[in-house]
């Protein structure tokens, strides 16, 4: 992969450009061997490390968003939920966190206060203890209002690692709810499309639901489809697990208002960010039961089985015919056959977070 001369907004968009940036970074900062069981090179949601006999998950996240307060949440809530979800998607119970705040000169203290309240409420709800912190103030214009950085340390709930590369042929792929709501709500609001009264960000923490699911089911892989949307997340699954996923478009739920807004914005809801959804690969036999479990929870009430990883013989037939190689996600559409579901190249509009 070649890297551009300058960092562009699209390098943070969650698509192919971002892959290029991440490759550049991890080449310059190679993961040290020894401590990590699953290192930064795996490009997963977090790393897995071992101290004494406890297996720990470490994840780190930076957040920024404009506007700071949006329908359904704010930067504070986003900071904690984002960190929690990354940790939970690895199958770990979040325990400790660090928090760094970078503030722009002139930020109203009242605004900061409200965001800190949000951070406190969300972390208390999750039983997450913030054990260390740092704060910097940057001159006006050097940063946009406020940036947060969190590191979360969690404890694996079972012996198995839950990674993006764990999808097995035959697995069912579940999605925990409607997609695209966060990104489209934000863009609709910025563009003044008038959908904001009905469309809220889906930002929420999923760790309770996901960890309970890990406890009860034979889950092979989990991921929260944030930037780059469902399309990117599924592609991470198929590429890292070296399987071909066959997803049915009609099984993917999209909020009707999000659909209307994305139509107007010319966006594909499958490539837009989410902040309270997960995709889960589970052994086929447990798919229905897991679906029932997810649907019984508020965070998963709109869950559905959206597709499956093809078995080798099935995969071979398709790949031989079309000249493709393994590791793609295919989308069976209602009106135009089965398409390759690509990672969005860049976000079509300045990125959301």
């Amino acid at each position, binding site marked *: 992969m070649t890297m551009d001369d300058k960092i562009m907004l699209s390098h943070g968009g969650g698509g192919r450009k971002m892959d290029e940036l991440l490759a550049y970074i991890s080449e310059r900062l190679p993961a040290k061997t020894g401590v990590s069981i699953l290192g930064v090179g795996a490009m997963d949601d977090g790393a897995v490390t071992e101290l004494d006999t406890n297996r720990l998950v470490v994840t780190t996240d930076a957040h920024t968003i404009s506007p700071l307060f949006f329908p359904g949440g704010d930067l504070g809530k986003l900071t904690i939920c984002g960190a929690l979800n990354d940790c939970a998607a690895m199958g770990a119970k979040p325990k400790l966190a660090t928090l760094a705040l970078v503030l722009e000169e002139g930020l109203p203290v009242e605004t900061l206060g409200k965001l800190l309240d949000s951070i406190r409420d969300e972390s208390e709800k999750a039983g997450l203890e913030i054990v260390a912190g740092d704060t910097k103030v940057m001159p006006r214009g050097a940063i946009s209002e406020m940036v947060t950085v969190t590191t979360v340390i969690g404890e694996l709930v079972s012996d198995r690692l839950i990674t993006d590369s764990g999808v097995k042929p035959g697995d069912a792929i579940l999605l925990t709810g409607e997609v695209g709501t966060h990104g489209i709500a934000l863009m609709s609001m910025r563009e003044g499309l008038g959908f904001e009264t009905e469309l809220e960000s889906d930002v929420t923490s999923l760790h309770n639901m996901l960890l309970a699911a890990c406890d009860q089911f034979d889950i092979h892989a989990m991921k929260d489809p944030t930037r780059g949307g469902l399309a990117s997340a599924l592609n991470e699954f198929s590429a890292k697990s070296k399987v071909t996923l066959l997803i049915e478009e009609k099984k993917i739920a999209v909020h009707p208002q999000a659909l209307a807004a994305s139509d107007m914005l010319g966006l594909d809801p499958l490539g837009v960010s989410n902040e309270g959804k997960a995709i889960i690969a589970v052994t086929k036999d447990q798919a229905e039961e897991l679906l029932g479990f997810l649907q019984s929870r508020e965070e998963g009430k709109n869950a559905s089985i959206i597709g499956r990883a093809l078995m080798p013989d099935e995969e071979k037939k398709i790949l031989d015919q*079309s000249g493709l190689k393994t590791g793609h996600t295919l989308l069976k559409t209602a009106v135009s056959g089965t398409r390759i579901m690509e990672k969005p190249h860049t976000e079509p509009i300045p990125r959301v977070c």
Partner: protein
Amino acid sequence: MEPSRAAPAKDTNTRRLTVKGVVQGVGFRPFVYRLATRREMRGSVLNKGSMGVEIKVTGTIPNLDAFQTALLAELPPLARIDELAVTEIPTEEFSEFSILESIEGTGGRSIAVIPADAGICKACSNEVLDTKDSRRGSYEFVACVDCGPRYSSIEDTPYDRPKTSYAEFPLCKECKTEYIDPGDRRFHAQTTACRICGPNYWIASDPEINGRAAIQAAARTVDAGGIIVVQGIAGSHLVCDARNRESVLKLRNFKNRHSKPFASMIRNEEALKRILTKCAKGGLVPEYDRLASIFSGTCRPILIFDAQLPETNWLSPGLGSLGVMLPYTGVHLTLFQHMNTDWIVATSGNPSGLPMAIDETEIAEQELDTIADLVLVHNRRIVQRIDDSVIRLATWSPFTEETSYANDQFYAPIIRRSRGYVPEGFIVRIEFPSGGLAVGPILDATGAIIVANKIIPTQHIGDTESIENLAFLRDALDHLLKIYRLSSPEFVAHDLHPQMPSTLFAKQLADELNAELYPIQHHHAHLAALAVDHSLEPDAQIVVATLDGVGYGAPGEAWGGEILAGTASTSRRVGSLLPFSLLAGDKAVKHPTRIAWSMFKEAGLDPRESLMRQLNHGDHEADFLDNRWGRKGIDVKTSAVGRLLDGFSAILGVCTLRSYKGEPAMKLDATGSKETSANHNLALACIEKFEAKQIIDWRPMLHWTLEELHNSEERKGDLGENPHETVSRIAGTLQRTIGETYGLACTRIAEQQGFDIVGISGGVAFNRFIPTEFRRVCVEQGLRCLLPASVPPGDGGVSVGQVYAAALRHSMV
């Protein structure tokens, strides 16, 4: 049958004639046999597969000359000679004239020609219609050396029955007698069959009902307003009574094609003549005789022509045209024998985005049986699925001056080159020692291979965004590579777009074949395809207006109004349409009001008054569009004439929502009045700064259009035209002016560069106004003007250009 030799007689010579072209599977050898035996000449004829056909004939010199003359003059209908090599050899004496067992020739790079499927001939039709004929009367698979399935049934070459899907049907005694009788028109007819030994039809849900009973039941279903699926010779059709509005609407619902035109089939020439006579009022179409060679020739394509018929206006809503074909196989004739209606819809049997179903399993997989009241299937395997071909009559009168245009001088470019044409190829004026292939564009794709001096495109594949169609493309290419014995193509050509699935496909193919990759820009491929179409020398320099809806030009630039100058190998972009933004990408294409909005903004006008009522989300959307237009660099900019036509279509209120590819532009074309002429001053205004900036500025056309609309509003009735007539006049004038503008721009470039050939290609070449006006301007300037003829100017011809350009570049390395 080894010929026995006797001592040579005096005064006789022997010649060896090696013939290449379409000479296999078209009754060529029996024809040679008859020519020779008629003159009591002896010798042999041998099918040597990829080496062509070899004739040895002994006779007096005058007899040999006469034989040779007749060979060229009296060819059977499906045969075509591309090469004839004659050698005098030592005199041999033969005891008779014999047709030898076929062999597969080895060595050399020569290539066999595999015949295309041919529409049922007159003699076979008569047999089908003869109810007293026990073997062939009402039999669906009647064929002879002059007609019947070919490419759709051929597994491999040389073309002989054991290598077709008829191998499963051993000939009965009578068929065998005909097959071995050199005097019979079924002599060596590889796909001959009769009711006793051949394939047969049955109803999928009730296989007990077969043969005539099945056809009768199907015919009754159609007459009763039902929908049927008919497995044909190369694919399947969804069929219903074209005159029954309810049935057609039901079919529309199923195919999710609410206004896209449906192809139809008319009982016979007499019925078609009656319909054309009705359409001829107002000079919309020429009389049948002028079109007969297209309608009833061996290719039997769908011909699209202007027609305003209230009785079937649901076939092509809003287009004022019809797409019609004549029956081309026995099953069509037998269905019409039992149906009351003389006109049926015959649209390909597939949901959009998937290849057409070719057997009972696929019909079920694609759930065609859920819509159909009856499914008619047969047991002759279809080796290659081939859709119907489509030709568009795109002019009202023939060209009178010198023109390189064929088809009786009527401009009738081919839209989809498939059944009846494939796998016939195009000869280029250069030999390539190694072969290669091309994977085509993303929409309406075909693939193509090149071997020696011949380009062979695949049948129509469809949009290669879907895995199913990619698999179809792969299968079609593999089949061509196999039958043309091209085992290791050296290159793979593909579109310049980095992310198209077909680009990915090309890369993986190149990997497998260890071949080199050649990305070919979409519009350059159009130029190269036009060069192939007109057999230009490889170094011929041309200026071509490549006008279409979209093609990747550079990152963030969607081209489609480009003037390219150069050779089929490489060209430069020497002119382009003033670009405008596609507001919110694909959405703008589906909602051409957004294109119109962008055009207004680009011209410094406020779109709200004219276009506000066309927006679905009112003020919010208008604000969004304004805001979006102001944010440079977010949206793709396009220079496509296809999109400009979409924009004008919205501005004139002709089409504001697109439900199928090309709809707004096609409707603008349909709306335009024939009784208009180009506005010369307006054209000049559009190219005022052409020399300096190489830009064709459409803004004067927008100003003129709005002024005309305003004037007619102000002077209601004064102009003696109603609002519809105003729109029709503006639409006609605008399109003619676009043709003239491009014509003027191209002639200026030709003059600057010293080129004397100009041309037009791209999907806009199907328009009835633009190519005609373009050509008029160029011919007036004394230039040779190329219009597309046998290679589709739309995306269906891109693979031909890709493979040719890549071959030229590859041979230079």
